[in-house]
């Protein structure tokens, strides 16, 4: 929402969604260039903004602005990705029950074990999806591995890969077993 103050003072755009904003007006402010953003959550802001501008243009979304740390960029992209994957999970929740898909599979060869438990467990598909998303949320937000949002430890970069792998399995399960949702 662009506040009324902007009418008087064209440079002053207040980027807020205060209570009472209509859904269509959400995030309806003029985009900021990356360099102008001076908050610690600048990368996330930038990614979200780019998505809003055109969510089909994956190239632009994935291109890091110049000078941005690779690790942080990947981290923030992954966060945003998990956020949006929630939508898929919701749709799956309706359809995918322990009755229909009692194991997490994509093709017939592989059964994926859920890594969110102490010992990897064979969860039904919907549980796998939920646990993976929850586990990813905990991991990506944990202070131990990712204490800061503007710098990533090198040791934690490997974690990003494993999170991606598990998340991708959710996709593959949806593709093979719940094709209509996938589309």
């Amino acid at each position, binding site marked *: 929402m662009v506040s009324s103050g902007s009418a008087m003072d064209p440079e002053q755009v207040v980027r807020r969604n205060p*209570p009472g904003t209509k*859904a269509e007006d959400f995030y309806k402010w003029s985009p900021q260039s990356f360099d102008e953003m001076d908050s610690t959550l600048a990368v996330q802001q930038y990614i979200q903004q780019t998505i809003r501008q055109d969510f089909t243009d994956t190239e632009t979304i994935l291109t890091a602005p110049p000078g941005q740390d690779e690790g942080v960029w990947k981290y923030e992209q992954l966060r945003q990705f998990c*956020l949006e994957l929630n939508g898929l999970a919701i749709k799956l929740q309706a359809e995918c029950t*322990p009755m229909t898909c009692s194991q997490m599979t994509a093709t017939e060869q592989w059964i994926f074990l859920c890594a969110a438990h102490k010992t990897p467990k064979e969860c039904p598909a919907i549980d796998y999806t939920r646990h993976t998303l929850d586990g990813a*949320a905990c991991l990506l937000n944990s202070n131990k591995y990712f204490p800061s949002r503007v710098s990533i430890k090198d040791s934690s970069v490997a974690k990003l890969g494993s999170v991606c792998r598990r998340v991708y399995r959710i996709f593959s399960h949806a593709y093979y077993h719940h094709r209509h949702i996938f589309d």
Partner: protein
Amino acid sequence: MDNGDSGGNQQNKPAETKSPYSMPGILHFIQHEWSRFEMERAQWDVERAELQARIAFLQGERKGQENLKRDLIRRIKMLEFALKQESDRAKVHKLKFGTDISMEQKHNETNEESKTNEMQTTNAHMSWRHGRQLLRQYLQEVGYSETILDVRSQRVRALLGNNYEVPKPTENDNQVVNGDLSDEEDDFDEVDGFGDAEMALAEFDFLNPPDSEPDDMKLDWSVDQNKLNAMKEQFRQEKRQTKKKELKRKWTRPIKKDLQNMLDTLRGSELNRATEDVDIHIPDEELLGVFIGYTNFSCQNIIFNMLCLKTMDHDWFLTQDSTPTKESYRKTWNPKYTLRSHFDGIRAIRFLPNESSVITASEDHTMKLWNLNKPLPSKKTQALDVEPIYSFRGHSGAVLSLEIDTEGSSCFSGGLDSTVRVWSIPSVEIDAYDTYDPSVSQKILVGHTDAVWSLSYSGTRQQLLSASSDCSVRLWNPTSADPLVQTYTTDGTPTSVCFVHCDSNHVVVSHTDGKVNLYDLETGQISLVLTEGDGIISSGSINCVVSHPTMPVTMTAHDDKHIKFYDNTSDTGKLIHSMVAHLDSVTSLSVDPNGLYLLSGSHDSSIRLWNLDSKTCIQELTSHRKKFDESIYSVAFHPSATYIASAGADALAKVFV
């Protein structure tokens, strides 16, 4: 090895028929003995260590006792010295003022110890100054500086902070005086035996609360009590004199008068007769005599003393004239838990009523349930991290508002996708990675056509109100088959609703254009428009409105940095008070369940705790970072425990204790 040996030695066995021993037997025996020896050696080692520890302990104890003995002897010597000086002084006074001393003289004689010296009289200042100087001398002799004494007293107070319990009100006066003096005492504690004596005196007060007839002065105890009070008074004053420079003590003349008045009431007729000065002037020597008599009571009295001290602390330092403080929130709030797991800003946070749990609603389309009793183990002591137990997935847009019912069994959420969802809250003990239970999502209340920004639940009516940016407020009955009870269209876009706690037929709604209206639910009409009085309507948007739990007051949080208080009862809905609360727009308010405190959060990244009686800010906490220009979205009090929480745009929620 045995077997091998026996196998190898079987041939030898018949050869050794003469001796009753066999190789394996011997070996076995030797091994057995060896292991036994080892065991015994281990036992001896253990015993030795134990005994050594005991020795060390006893040595320490003995050292402590010797120190104590030395201190006591020192005190006794100083007291005797002071006593002698006082007796000299009293003799001088007696020559000047004969009659006034006679009363106390009687009491003198009835004392346990022989007090041959007389009392002093009306000349307060002389005795005070003398006493003060005496005490200063003692201090210097021992080498204590004032600062050390201060530090000690502070430490003692801090130590006792947790153990203290509020005493009965009848004893209050006594204790105030006691505590007051004992505070002085504390500073001199190790230096002079007055501390001990004070404690003894304090104890007497408990024994004989009000009575202090002069006729009863025959009793040693009551006599002592009077003198004790007077002595305490004197000490307090002396102390005050010495500490005048330290303004933090806040002891001023009027307070002394208060104390004296209290002492007067305690003492009864004897005091009424005597002048104020005389009361104060209890002879030092008598004081000291009593002290000497009771120096032995140190230990238990110390504890009692401390208790008095603590009372005094509360009564004195924190609330001079006002009512005694309520313990619950009179302290600073410190961050305790940080809840990290959301991917985007957290729009709402609420406590579960009967547990140490919170639910957060976030723009990442999920809500999460957290159990504060199970934080992650962490080396840092500052803020513990907590992981969520459960994630509520169902909204297809950001979840904007959250409300929990009064039992804590179900929660309601409103989102950008214009739905209100009812969830049943799983137990807080479940494992975070349990199987999916589809029954958690109970109902979806469809009706609004735009984002649902605010929810309010009324326990008395068992109904839910939702406000949406489609300019309507809807009333739902979540448990019934047809949930929607009524729809009210509002004049302007509502931002926040709240049931009026005193009267659940009314709700208060705030709007983006600054209007605050009181609606009657039966008629659906505006019953009252809350304005600023002379027709001025605030221009900025109102972000949040809350209703006071016990009084008919409504509080609103404005975009123009103000918090305003409105009266619901008057016909015009008058503005009671308006204050500039933050440096940026105020986003969220929460009232504590007792109605004493208000918590406000703002986009300037700060949370402020306000006292509702005085409308002053008690504490400010900075938390949360800004995303896009927004910082704190929501603050909440726990309905029954001492927790407060804040939710921010940086996807974190913090809980303070």
